[in-house]
């Protein structure tokens, strides 16, 4: 309750007006936020009474049903990046944005077929439990915990920074306050309610998210009698959409008719330029999801492999259904709000969904429009808090269960009470750390971190989990080598990739813009002088655009005036792929294979029959869950 008051006070802080909800309707935003927060806090209060044992804290005592877990997985997975980001990508780049969403669903096929059920049958609380089963428990727990903390921290930082910016844009409180607000709320859920509260917060968030999306999509689509070609025909006929495509294409657009420009929005290639980048990113998504510790952890909250399977099938229905809805959210926003207006509020397009909600409700001056915006904003806020809670719980369990109980106090009996205490202390540490990182990373471009989290999960965690479950000869040496090589290669390649800012290239591009603009200016001045009214009007417009481009180029030059190299001391990228998956995933697999072949580990071999028989039959699983 204290946290609720604190959060309400945070939200109530008067601040500079931002785009988003108008000042007259700010009270409405606070009311909707307070309602959502109050609901989740009430659930946490109920959950706190049920959290007694360490199994309650980490896995809700295994008492979650397949359907509930399906919704919770959707709530854990549909982060702000997918909720706001993909609708935004579609609204700005059309087809490519929608194509990007596909990988996020296909990823669950890997989880369903290869990972979910064996993990439920073998594991208990953490990813390292699976690795430690037949390998040296201490060594594998150390590398497993480090990798869990690495992946979760990358993901967490992206969520905290994204969340801070989002809340700031949506309701106009300052960045630091937003980050602290998200952090405190999340800590309240996890500390008091453990996995029970986290699960319910994720379920509530997923239900709200899906409900809000369905309402918006029905309102957008109904005027077309729910006809897909009818709706899209209107989108491509929209001059705003055609203008957006023209600005993306540049010179080649001049030879195209308006109809061609509109149709181009439904064709690939406006966002993804290098096919190989896209394939690399696709690999990281499809294999990385199965290695995300906070997703794996969700399978320990159900009692049997059958329930684990059911939860993935439900999750796929919800997640896939949601991404189909983003098709309408994104194209609807491009048509009704306009790509240029969306990009003006947030260059990444993250505001497409919220702005569409406002438009559908009647626009910025209407009560309903602002209510819809407030509601979607509250859902976005709940989204961030729910995902962050899952990530913190995964990191805290790696710290407390794997490192503290499993390694530091190995061989000693830690009392159940001591284990719960360790879990809560670890939660506090991770929570405080996430707030600190969130504030420290203010203004940084963190989009790359989500891709990196998936890349490390796909290159380190996924090969290790997969091979320890399915390859007889896999052993401790393989796990340690695979984890280290996968992580180091994925992180290392990203550090020398084009994702970082290379001041020399930025400055060269800025100079080029200035030179080209000077030539265009000359042409425009001639047009002005020619006396032709139409040409003069066009030239005036051109000049205004040139002024803007020049200002940006000059700002870049000033910003990087004293720097020549990237953060890593490089003048240009050493590695051309934006996502390292294509290289780092095979290397991670090779690491596990060669590590296993080079080192002998008798226990891993002897335990194979047990691992394989147990993961397929589920023997003993109910006993290891019940307490």
């Amino acid at each position, binding site marked *: 309750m204290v946290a609720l008051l604190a959060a309400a006070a945070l939200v109530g802080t008067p601040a500079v007006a931002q785009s988003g909800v108008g000042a007259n309707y700010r009270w409405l935003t606070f009311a909707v936020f307070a309602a959502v927060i109050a609901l989740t806090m009430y659930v946490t209060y109920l959950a706190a009474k049920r959290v007694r044992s360490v199994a309650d804290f980490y896995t809700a005592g295994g008492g979650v049903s397949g359907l509930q877990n399906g919704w919770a997985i959707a709530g854990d997975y549909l982060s702000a990046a997918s909720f706001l980001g993909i609708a935004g990508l579609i609204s700005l780049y059309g*087809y490519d944005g*929608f194509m990007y969403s596909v990988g996020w669903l296909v990823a669950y096929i890997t989880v369903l077929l290869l990972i979910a059920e064996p993990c439920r049958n073998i594991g208990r609380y953490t990813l390292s439990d699976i690795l*430690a089963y037949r390998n040296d428990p201490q060594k594998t727990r150390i590398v497993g915990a480090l990798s869990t903390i690495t992946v979760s921290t990358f993901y967490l930082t992206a969520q905290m920074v994204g969340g801070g910016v989002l809340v700031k844009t949506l309701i106009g409180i300052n960045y630091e306050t937003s980050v602290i607000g998200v952090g405190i709320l999340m800590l309240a859920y996890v500390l008091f309610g453990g996995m029970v509260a986290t699960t319910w917060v994720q379920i509530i968030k997923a239900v709200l998210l899906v409900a809000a999306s369905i309402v918006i999509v029905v309102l957008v689509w109904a005027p077309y009698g729910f006809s897909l070609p009818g709706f899209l025909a209107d989108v491509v006929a929209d001059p705003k959409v055609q203008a957006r495509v023209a600005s993306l294409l540049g010179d080649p657009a001049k030879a195209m008719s308006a109809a061609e420009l509109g*149709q181009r929005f439904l064709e*690939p290639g406006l966002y993804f330029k290098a*096919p190989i980048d896209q394939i690399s990113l*696709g690999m990281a998504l499809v294999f990385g999801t199965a290695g995300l510790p906070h997703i794996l952890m969700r399978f320990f909250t159900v009692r049997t492999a059958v329930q684990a399977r059911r939860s993935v099938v439900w999750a*796929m229905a919800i997640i896939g259904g949601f991404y189909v809805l983003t098709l309408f959210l994104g194209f609807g926003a491009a048509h009704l709000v306009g790509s240029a207006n969306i990009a003006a509020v947030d260059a990444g397009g993250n505001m497409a969904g919220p702005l569409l909600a406002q438009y559908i409700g009647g626009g910025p001056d209407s009560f309903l429009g602002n209510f819809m915006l407030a509601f979607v904003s509250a859902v976005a806020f709940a989204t961030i808090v729910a995902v962050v809670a899952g990530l913190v719980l995964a990191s805290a369990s790696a710290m407390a269960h794997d490192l503290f109980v499993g390694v530091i106090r190995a061989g000693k009996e830690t009392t159940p009470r001591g284990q719960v205490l360790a879990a809560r202390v670890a939660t506090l540490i991770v929570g405080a750390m996430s707030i600190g990182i969130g504030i420290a990373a203010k203004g940084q471009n963190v989009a790359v971190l989500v891709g990196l989290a998936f890349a490390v999960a796909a290159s380190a965690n996924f090969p290790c989990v997969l091979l320890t479950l399915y390859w007889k000869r896999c052993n401790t040496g393989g796990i340690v080598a695979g984890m280290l090589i996968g992580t180091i290669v994925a992180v290392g390649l990203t550090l020398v990739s084009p994702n970082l800012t290379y001041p020399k290239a930025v400055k060269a591009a800025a100079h080029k813009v200035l030179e080209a603009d000077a030539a265009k200016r000359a042409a425009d001045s001639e047009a002005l002088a020619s006396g032709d009214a139409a040409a003069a009007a066009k030239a005036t417009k051109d000049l205004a655009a040139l002024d803007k481009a020049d200002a940006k180029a000059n700002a870049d030059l000033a910003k990087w005036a004293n720097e020549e190299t990237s953060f890593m001391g490089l003048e240009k990228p050493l590695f051309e792929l934006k996502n390292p998956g294509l290289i780092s995933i095979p290397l991670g697999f090779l690491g596990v294979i060669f590590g296993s072949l080079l080192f002998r580990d008798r226990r891993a071999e002897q335990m194979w029959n047990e691992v394989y028989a147990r993961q397929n*039959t589920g023997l003993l699983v109910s006993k*290891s869950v019940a307490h």
Partner: protein
Amino acid sequence: MANPNVVDWDAIIRDPRFQSLHRRKSIFLWGLMTLSVVYYFLLPIGAAYYQDLFKIRVWGVVNVGLLFALSEFVVAWTIALVYSRKASQDFDKMAKEIAAEFGSSKPVREGVIV
């Protein structure tokens, strides 16, 4: 660690019913897995190298690329349903039978890390 003496794991592995479960499951799982990965990567490959095909309009303004992207959802859902149907009708029964025979009634020591 769970007491290894509780269940005779080696006997399970040797059991012909387990061998048959293992074979059928492996073929089915890895087959579906290969299918889904291949079908998924056809999308970025098509979008990059077969743009002329993706641009063909087939249903009003709706083109092949858009339908193909939508078909990815249908294929993913179908694979999930096919697998879960097969598993619940087939694999679960076999696993249950084996577990019932080899599962021991002896209690496992609790409160220990597995």
